[in-house]
């Protein structure tokens, strides 16, 4: 297994400009590392540079201490799983899986044994002789996975492997992929725009936007302690209100919002490097699921508003409120009440649930 180091990785295309800008990343041995970001943020290009299909403008890519920046794709010993599976349609399932073995001069019974093992790992033993186009999308993706793992590469790269699967299959494949990673311990780099996948599977996540890495951390870190405003808005459903710090009293920070409402926030809940002195501008973010209906006794951090939209989405009831501090999203989970449009609600923005993020840079 290898660690992967990207040192000031930069790539630009003549048509779309800079797609990856001065990116530094280190993926540790055996990690399941995810590049998460909206489409066009440069995550796939980064993966393709690691795989050897794009040449970076400048930088160094290292597998352990070996510099592979200009090594051809065929010499990097990686397994690659594509969004569109990229199975060879003129070969049977077993032939597809055996392709990488044949390249490595592993033939005959040794190869057959390895192919059987790999197909068993993805529970496709029955389909070994089937034609590729006889399989369902989920099965094809598992063949692609078996094909990429059978020759035991030192690094597994996955480029949005689940985006063509339906929701249910995606959950199954997600679990299968996680198990497979635990069993093999192979260093894996996973590219996705789906935050649920990223959070559920990764050891660490790098959140990217417009050619830059915004934050690298464990799923819990990036979700609970977003270091930039983009990360806060991209992951989950978040409410962000810009305001000005009025007083800092020990752990308690008072923030005045533009409409005059003052809310209290715990000082420990802030992004590193964000100044919290009286007069500094901050964004107070609170997740939709952290907003609760206010109880009788609450007075601090309570806002009232009118329900403008209600969406029943199964596990939760997603509501939108129009309040003095602005529009507010809240997710009610199993709460006894079923608000309807036009109801008035008082909600509590608990000081322990609010997190400071930088204010929106003024253009």
């Amino acid at each position, binding site marked *: 297994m290898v660690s992967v180091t990207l040192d000031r990785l930069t790539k630009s295309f003549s048509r779309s400009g800079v797609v990856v800008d001065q990116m530094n990343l280190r993926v540790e041995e055996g990690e399941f590392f995810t590049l998460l970001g909206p489409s066009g943020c440069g995550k796939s290009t980064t993966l393709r540079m690691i795989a050897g299909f794009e040449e970076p403008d400048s930088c160094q890519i290292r597998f352990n201490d070996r510099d592979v920046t200009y090594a051809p*794709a065929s010499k990097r010993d990686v397994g690659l799983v594509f969004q569109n599976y990229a199975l*060879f349609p*003129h070969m049977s399932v077993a032939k597809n899986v055996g392709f990488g073995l044949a*390249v490595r001069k592993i033939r005959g019974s040794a190869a057959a044994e390895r192919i059987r093992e790999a197909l068993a790992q993805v529970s496709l033993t029955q389909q070994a002789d089937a034609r590729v186009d006889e399989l369902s999308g989920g099965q094809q993706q598992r063949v692609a996975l078996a094909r990429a793992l059978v020759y035991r590469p030192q690094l597994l790269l996955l480029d949005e492997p689940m985006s063509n699967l339906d929701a249910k299959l995606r959950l199954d494949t997600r679990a299968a992929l996680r198990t497979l990673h635990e069993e093999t311990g192979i260093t894996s780099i996973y590219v996705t725009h789906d935050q649920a996948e990223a959070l559920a599977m990764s050891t660490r996540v790098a959140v990217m936007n417009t050619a830059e890495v915004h934050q690298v951390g464990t799923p819990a870190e990036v979700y609970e302690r977003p270091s930039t405003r983009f990360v806060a808005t991209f992951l989950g459903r978040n409410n962000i209100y810009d305001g000005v710090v009025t007083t800092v009293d020990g752990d308690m920070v008072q923030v005045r919002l533009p409409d005059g409402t003052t809310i209290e926030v715990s000082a420990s809940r802030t992004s590193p490097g964000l100044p919290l002195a009286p007069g500094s501008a901050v964004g107070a973010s609170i997740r939709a699921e952290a907003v609760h209906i206010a109880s009788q006794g609450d007075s601090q951090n309570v806002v009232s508003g009118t329900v403008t939209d209600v969406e029943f989405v199964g596990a939760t009831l997603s509501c939108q409120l129009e309040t003095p501090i602005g529009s507010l999203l809240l997710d009610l989970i199993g709460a006894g009440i079923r608000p309807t449009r036009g109801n008035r609600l008082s909600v509590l923005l608990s000081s322990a649930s609010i997190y400071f993020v930088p204010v929106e840079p003024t253009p």
Partner: protein
Amino acid sequence: MTTGTTTPCESGDTMYAVYKRPSLFRRRFNVIATLTVLLVVLFWYVIGPMIATARRSLSTDRINTMGVSFHAWGEFFLSDTQRSAIVGSVTLSILSVITAGLLGTGVAILLSRWDFPGRRFCQILALLPIASPPLMGVWAFKLLFGVGGRIQFALGEWFGVAPKDFWLQGLAGVLIVHTMTIYPYFYLTVSAAMMSSDVSLEEASYSMGASKVRTWLRVILPMLTPAVVAGALLTFMSSMASYTAPLLFQYTNVMTQQIVISKSNGDMRLASIIATTLAMISILFLAVIRSYEQRKIYRTQSKGGGRQRSTVTSPLARIVIAVIAIPLTLFLVLPIIMILVL
């Protein structure tokens, strides 16, 4: 033919018409009409003449159609000339498939895989020979490559060889006409396959450690087989039916020439026998290819995310490919230019 507004039905104050389910004839009218036209045309122009020809081949008389006898068929298969013509036609067609296949596939790969200045122009030019008029086209070939051919004179001057040693006659002449007029069938099918081929398959091959050579042999070329087979079918059938090329290059050892010779000898029955045999060989070939196609159709796997083909960007490589592709394309349309010049 009314679909029927029979009993008006009252609903509140509004009157609604009640519609019955249309009759089967009405529901299937489009299918029935199309099928009728198709069958009439097919029977009149294709099946009818074929049946008439087959019927005449069984006649007891050389000129008129009467009685039934297999006697003439027996003579046909015993005749050395006729047997040789069958072998000649099939051999010529197979050779044409091979040469046109190599040229067409090569040109298709060259023009669809790499980008170079003038590529679009070449792609259009490469299709032109398909529009080459039969008689004029072959005549142009004869002037270019045949006895006293201009190509050989030009080459002779450049390389100092005697032109008469390289004049293309008989089979070689017919073959070059076939190759250079029929290759667009391969060119069309193969370049369509190249254009729609999925780059990620190549990338998958490289990522698994395969070299360029292995990727070409095991991934790219096998993916082209259905296109090549389709091209082979068209090439084989049109070579079998080719008439003017053997005529102008005086190559009589093919079935089409024998049909005309028998006809001018007044043996309509023999002409019918040869024609029937020729049709049967073509149909047999079609059936074989069809059964192959049934078994091996590569449906496109990719959903979404198909990547744009990477094109050659290094200026030197672009020039090198242009230097190969442009003269080759011009050479291919030379007979067309010849017709225009004449």
